């Protein structure tokens, strides 16, 4: 064989390989990708996706079950339970996880699911609100959001909510910390690339609270954002701060149309 034909054969082999690569890159992710917006599910390893898909194997369901128990438990000082007012959560809470955070006119700002649960506890049941990231608050939030499983994320971002949406967008695009990085640098310009041992995703919020293998437990969206802020060496805001709830609305808009996956499994 002449040197030239060997070269050509090498080139055609490369072309074939790149063809295979392109096909793999354009994988059909079904409901997990909408107009180029991809759920973190599509960046997770096959084993992690299998773990999420199996209700038994998905450890996040431990919190769904705990939340279901809490829902029927008398928590209030007068023996009130969540079910006492809201009845069957599978009906009354359906859709909540897809549209929150929402504007709370009585507060003049946004409110997310965790805060709404705590508002019920302190204002209607006369008991102390649950700490952020505590077992009962995670369980109840996961249970409530799980009722919207599979529904497309569809927050309201216009009208009175617009200034809060704009604040969230500004946070998302603003450089911060010693590394002087904004959310967009990883999640819009570099998704799919590796950040040390981790594959960067688009930073979609549709699966939260998520069972994170690195954490060995389930955690809230705000815990994840605090981690991101620390990673760029900035001082994080407290969980439940206005800054993060505004950001939560912007993240929900970024994830619009993607299915609610709560509880998802991520590495």
């Amino acid at each position, binding site marked *: 064989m002449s040197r030239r034909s060997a070269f050509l054969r090498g080139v055609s082999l490369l072309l074939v390989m790149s063809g295979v690569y392109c096909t793999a890159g354009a994988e059909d992710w079904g409901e997990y990708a909408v107009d180029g917006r991809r759920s973190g599910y599509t960046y997770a390893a096959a084993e992690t996706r299998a773990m999420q898909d199996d209700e038994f*194997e998905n*450890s996040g369901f431990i919190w769904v079950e*705990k939340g279901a128990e809490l829902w029927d438990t008398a928590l209030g000082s007068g023996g009130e339970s969540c079910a006492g007012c809201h009845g069957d959560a599978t009906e009354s809470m359906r859709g909540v996880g897809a549209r929150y955070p929402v504007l709370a006119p009585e507060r003049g700002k946004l409110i997310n699911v965790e805060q709404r649960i705590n508002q019920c506890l302190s204002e209607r049941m006369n008991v102390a609100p649950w700490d952020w990231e505590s077992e009962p608050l995670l369980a109840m939030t996961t249970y409530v959001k799980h009722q919207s499983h599979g529904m497309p994320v569809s927050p309201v971002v216009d009208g009175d909510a617009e200034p809060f949406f704009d604040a969230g967008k500004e946070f998302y695009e603003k450089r911060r910390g010693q590394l002087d990085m904004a959310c967009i640098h990883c999640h819009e310009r570099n998704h799919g690339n590796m950040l040390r041992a981790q594959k960067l995703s688009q930073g979609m919020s549709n699966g939260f609270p998520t069972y994170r*293998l690195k954490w*060995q437990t389930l955690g809230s969206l705000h815990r994840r954002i605090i981690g991101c802020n620390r990673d760029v060496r900035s001082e994080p805001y407290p969980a439940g701060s206005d800054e993060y709830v505004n950001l939560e609305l912007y993240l929900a808009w970024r994830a619009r149309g993607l299915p609610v996956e709560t509880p998802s499994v991520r590495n």
Partner: protein
Amino acid sequence: MDKPRVKVPKKVKKGEPFEVKALVSHKMESGQRKDEASGEKIPRMIINQFECSLDGEVVFSAKLYPAISANPYLSFYVVAEKSGELSFSWTDDSGDTATASSKFVVQ
């Protein structure tokens, strides 16, 4: 320990292996971490023993070590010649035990 979750088929075929799944909620503290605030070592607290018995006879058992993840999930296969009941037990370092059981019918 919280209530464990087990999955056993209701009906199985005689002499054919069937899959059994078992998951329990446990933090599986490895004993190698320190409390960030105080600097004190967090003592080891893991499930160290799992057993599955078929009508009283142990058919599967496992020793668990500190590298096993939180909320350990085990799946394995069992063969049965007649209908019976599988009982499960998890024991942790404090001696605390969680149990579960599930009946199945051989066809």
